[in-house]
């Protein structure tokens, strides 16, 4: 699903955020992307979502070589993935319903279908009673659930989550992470940037560890623990 070959990213200020990264995340896998802040996690996520382009190397997502995706093709490329943000990035001047409906509206679904899917998704994240409220009135955990409903409503084949539990307490974080795990179980490839090592250990998923732009480890988390002693 995600394949990086010798990928480097150097920003215009000269900072090299990623150096010669090669990795492969097969279809249907779930992995955590970890590392200290500044290690290159965000840059890697941005390369996957085509927010940035690599300076060197090749990124292939879903069999699609991203260097072949032109500017006009980016929207359609992104419709195949769901992105979840640490700060939720909801539209605060629109209701919960409208926020969740956005990917379907963008993709041009019919009104009836949108209503059905949105209500189903909101029902599933336990927020059906809040469909008419504005996100500002929701708690952090509820806002994140709205964000998740929005990210999965169009049934993407790849889920990207950037520090999805960054602002949540441990119980809520666990709940959210398990939700991702469940999505993964039905075949969605999931990549989560996180440094919540306790929670990652609990989920027993492979990790991709970055250190100062280099790939430090790709595999089970115990290996890292062993290395770190």
């Amino acid at each position: 699903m995600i394949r990086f070959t010798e990928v480097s990213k150097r920003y215009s200020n000269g900072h090299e955020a990623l150096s010669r990264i090669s990795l492969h995340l097969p279809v249907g896998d779930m992995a955590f992307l970890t590392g200290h802040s500044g290690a290159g996690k965000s840059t890697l996520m941005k390369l996957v979502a085509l927010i940035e382009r690599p300076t060197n190397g090749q990124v292939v997502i879903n069999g699609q070589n991203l260097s072949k995706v032109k500017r006009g093709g980016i929207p359609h490329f992104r419709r195949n993935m769901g992105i979840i943000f640490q700060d939720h990035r909801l539209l605060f001047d629109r209701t919960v319903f409208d926020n969740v409906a956005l990917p379907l509206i963008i993709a041009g679904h019919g009104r009836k279908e949108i209503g059905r899917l949105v209500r189903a998704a909101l029902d599933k994240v336990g927020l059906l009673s809040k469909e008419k409220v504005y996100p500002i009135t929701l708690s952090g955990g509820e806002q994140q659930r709205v964000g998740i409903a929005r990210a999965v409503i169009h049934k993407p084949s790849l889920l990207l989550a950037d520090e999805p539990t960054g602002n949540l307490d441990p119980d809520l974080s666990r709940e959210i992470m398990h939700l991702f795990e469940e999505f993964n179980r039905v075949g969605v490839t999931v990549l989560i940037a996180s440094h919540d090592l306790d929670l990652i250990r609990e989920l027993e998923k492979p990790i991709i560890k970055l250190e100062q732009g280099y790939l430090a480890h790709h595999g089970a988390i115990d290996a890292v623990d062993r290395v770190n002693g």
Partner: protein
Amino acid sequence: MQWIESMVRDLDKDMMINPSERGGRRSTRRGISIKGWLNNYLLRHVQTFFYTLGQLSSRPFSTFMTTAVIGIALSLPAGLNLLLKNGQEVLQGWNSATQISLFLTQKINSKEAQGLASKLRKMPEIASVEYISKESALAEFSQHSGFGEALDALEHNPLPAVLLITPKNNQEQPGKIAALVERLGKRSEVDIAQLDMEWVERLFALMAIGERGVLILSGLLAIAVLLVVGNTIRLAIQNRRDEIVITKLIGATDSFIRRPFLYTGFWYGLLGGLIALLLLELSLTLLAEPVRDVAALYHSSFQLQGVDLQTLVILLGLGSFLGYFGSWIAVGRHLREIEPC
């Protein structure tokens, strides 16, 4: 955690199908219901159409400020154009009232003069011919000029017989009338053919300057409208920066993001046109009475012409076009700058 489980259960088998197959399936689905897709597309436009109107009405004051500026900018050239049209109307009235005086030579007696008059009446360019005999000319002159006694002292009547000729109304260009005057002047019976044409020509020339002036002013104010709308939309884009970034991340195309801004520009222009229309009607109402008074002084029944259908259509059409176009320019310039980072 029940909701998680039910959610997962409900995510249909689609998820398991590999991406290439999914793409294939989706395209056939779209192929089957092109009509449905088109309906959705139109529906989306209609939705945006009213959504943007709703957004504007939720901020009535700022909407009014912008549309009022546009309205004033549009009403100026439209109003001047209207005045010009009215002026032409007045001029047309005077022009058709122009008369040609044919002063006949002294040799012509009254019978010959009347014969000439009836001959001229048959000419297609001439509407009517009035014969004023030497005697009645003298009577009229002595009555109006105050030289009555001096004239009485003269042995002969020095005044010639006159044929007053009214050209047909359709003589729109002063040139045609001038040609007619020249032709009549060459006749042997006619001593002098006279028409005070110069003032008509001058007035037409002034009118042409006025027309050109209105055209230049219209051009400048059209640019002003473009700038006003462009700037308003630029601010709107900046205010919605976050929203644009989010929708781009979700996979919105440029045209999807552009659409509400374009419709907003359209609404600004259309509402501006309506305000311009109101301003024009108001000004015309205020001007109607003094104009009537002046007309009465000239024994004319002239009335100011109001906004006709053509002006209305042009005003609203041009307004909405300028709004749309101004927005299009602003969106084209600023939307590309906003990318997720």
